[in-house]
């Protein structure tokens, strides 16, 4: 696209004189300026920075288990992307950080107790089938981390079932108890809001600390790396259904705030649902998408056998994204209103 053409040079000088260096002028299509403050790589780095509080919280609660999962998942995702990209005959670009982001999110969505092969297979399936098969970055329909997690959830049902989160033996205190959502679903036990907010509970690595998710999530929205419409839609839907549920089950002690702070809702709303590749393009579409995710999460939490529904909700709404895009094509300036 960029052709180099030499500008006219002056006539060659006589002996002993320095030649005048003429500038090299080349052409390219307009526009000739670009906003240099935002690149795709910087967006990925933003996500990693925003994930730092969540990672720190998980390290604090789950200690070596968190380190273990993070290392395995990130390494697997990077290895998978390199391998599959080379198989496609292309040059792998690990420094665009997208595979690293997938690895961190996958690790944070797993229980601390998961065996090593869960992370490895999750990473390979997630990157291979969730991303590379579609054509690489930007071409996939489903969130790659969630594709990997869905696969291992079904393949290793025991390790990722609600009971799999608990492990009586071992050095990490947190995994000796049931997860808050499971405790409520099975036994009606209501974990105090403060614990849900701060995060000293059991759960997948990233979901425990609502505070960490909020800090990271708001950073992402301010940086415009994540579109605020998506978490807004999720929270609005969860709030709406949560209030209804609270009113219907007034004596259970589990309020809409528990729904918002408990489980992977905030992690999903800010880090998983906001994946730009798999979510709609227009602001209206993003609100609809977020609302759909929130509604499905509540549906699954309240009426299904699973205590948590974020992963399925996101995957289902990913499949609806092309339709939402079609429904929310913006009206061009001056176009007639559609009847």
């Amino acid at each position: 696209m960029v052709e180099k053409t030499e500008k006219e040079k002056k006539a060659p000088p006589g002996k002993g004189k320095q030649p005048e260096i003429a500038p090299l002028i080349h052409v390219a299509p307009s526009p000739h300026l670009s906003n240099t403050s935002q690149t795709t790589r910087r967006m990925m780095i933003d996500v990693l920075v925003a994930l730092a509080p969540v990672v720190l919280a998980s390290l604090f609660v789950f200690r070596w288990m968190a380190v273990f999962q993070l290392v395995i998942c990130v390494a697997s995702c990077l290895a998978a992307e390199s391998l599959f990209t080379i198989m496609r005959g292309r040059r792998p670009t690990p420094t665009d950080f997208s595979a690293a982001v997938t690895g961190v999110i996958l690790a944070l969505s797993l229980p601390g107790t998961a065996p090593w092969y869960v992370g490895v297979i999750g990473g390979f399936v997630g990157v291979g089938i969730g991303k590379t098969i579609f054509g690489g970055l930007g071409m996939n329909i489903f969130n790659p981390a969630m594709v990997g997690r869905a696969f291992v959830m079904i393949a290793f049902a025991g390790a990722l079932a609600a009971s799999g989160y608990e492990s009586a033996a071992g050095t990490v205190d947190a995994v000796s108890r049931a997860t808050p959502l499971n405790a409520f679903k099975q036994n009606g036990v209501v974990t105090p809001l403060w614990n849900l907010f701060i995060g000293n509970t059991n759960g997948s690595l990233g979901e425990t600390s609502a505070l960490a998710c909020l800090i990271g999530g708001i950073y992402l929205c301010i940086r415009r790396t994540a579109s605020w419409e998506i978490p807004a839609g999720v929270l609005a839907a969860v709030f709406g259904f949560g209030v209804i549920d609270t009113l219907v089950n007034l004596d259970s002690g589990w309020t809409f705030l528990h729904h918002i702070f408990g489980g992977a809702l905030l992690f999903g709303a800010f880090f998983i649902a906001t994946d730009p590749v798999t979510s709609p393009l227009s602001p209206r579409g993003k609100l609809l998408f977020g609302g759909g995710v929130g509604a499905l999460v509540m549906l699954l939490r309240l009426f299904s056998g699973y205590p948590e529904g974020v992963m399925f909700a996101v995957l289902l709404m990913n499949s609806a994204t092309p339709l939402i895009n079609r429904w929310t094509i913006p009206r061009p300036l001056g176009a007639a209103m559609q009847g």
Partner: protein
Amino acid sequence: MSAATGFKHAGTFERGVHPPERKGYSENESIEILPTPEKVDVPILQNIGAPCEPIVKSKQEVVFGEKIARGKGFVSAPIFSPINGKVQKLSVVTLPNGRHVSSIPIRAQGDQISLRELREIFLGGVWPNRGIETIDPEVIRRQIAEAGIVGLGGAAFPTHVKYAPNEKKPIDTVLINGCECEPYLTSDTRLMIECPEAVVTGALLVKHAAGAKRIVIGLEDNKPEAIKAMQRAAGGSGMEVAVLPTKYPQGSEKQLIMAILKRAVPLGGLPLDVGVAVTNVGTAHAMAAAVIRGRPLTHRIVCVTGAGIRRPRNLLAPIGAPARDLIAACGGFTEDAVRMIAGGPMMGFAFTDLNTPVTKGTSGFTVLSAAELKQTEETNCVRCGRCVDVCPMNLVPTKLALASRNKDVDLLERYSAPGCFECGCCAYICPANLPIVQLVRTGKAMVMAARKKAG
């Protein structure tokens, strides 16, 4: 209210971007008259519409202001010689947009109009703003047509066609465009600072010719000196001054009409459809010179600017002057000049041939250094939606680019590809540095070809 400049804002449009303004290179440089070139090369196509037909022959001697090519058909405008000289053999010139057009080269010969006299003719003297209503509108339109005036803002549409009487679509408001929203360019700014009375005269002429009830000039708030000059000159004339927040592309006519009048031009339609006509300040000035002083369009103000120019200036240059002369008059290129653009950096065309002449639509030459230039490393589209957030026409640029890559004409139509006016906001903001404008341009051509084939 603009805190920085203290002006009250008249309105704005949705979306758009804020590229760095970089007007500082040339906004304080008074207009200088370019020394008469040794040779000018006058293209015979300088406007939207039909090319002109030369009416002079090789070796013929012509004088300043003599007609050298006549318009063919209604949508065309005649062309005049800007110097005294001898016509050379008909030649071909490549314009920055890539088109090859025939041209009339004229070699300067004998005495030329002095630079002082040129300044007096175009920028000096008194410009009346009373008694305009006594001139017959038909006479105004005829003189505009005979002077070869086209839109000097860049589109170069023959002005007399824009203001031709239309009973079905009368014009109630004329907007004068003093926004100059492209970064770097300051030709319109300096015109408004140094010769605001001429702009007012031209505005009143066009208001009378169009039969409009209201005349408003719109300026962005990044040119306080020009705003004050226009407010002073317009006082008591009936022309309103609307100050708008600086945002690209405020100077685009649909966005200007939305900001000042809150009217939306129908998609695929013209401002005429909502009773408005928009004219650039330079065109208004040229109309005043034509009707009041009988001068045809032979010169225009060209801003030569950017980090790649040693001494950026605003030059009054003859139409047909080669770029080489203008750049030399500004001290030549700096060592790190890498791109030369006819127009501004958002929508202008890059070129390399220094013989390229100034045309009626050339608002400036912007020469960028590597540091100022767009990054070219392309990565994948991650559907972040930023292009959707900034498109002033409310389109979905990423989808249009995808459709263009896959030659999907149906998808291009569904997403209204012809609505795009190639402003460059999408490509400017894209984090992946995708060539969205280039792709949409190709897509629009595919749509036009398909529509033509369908009949």
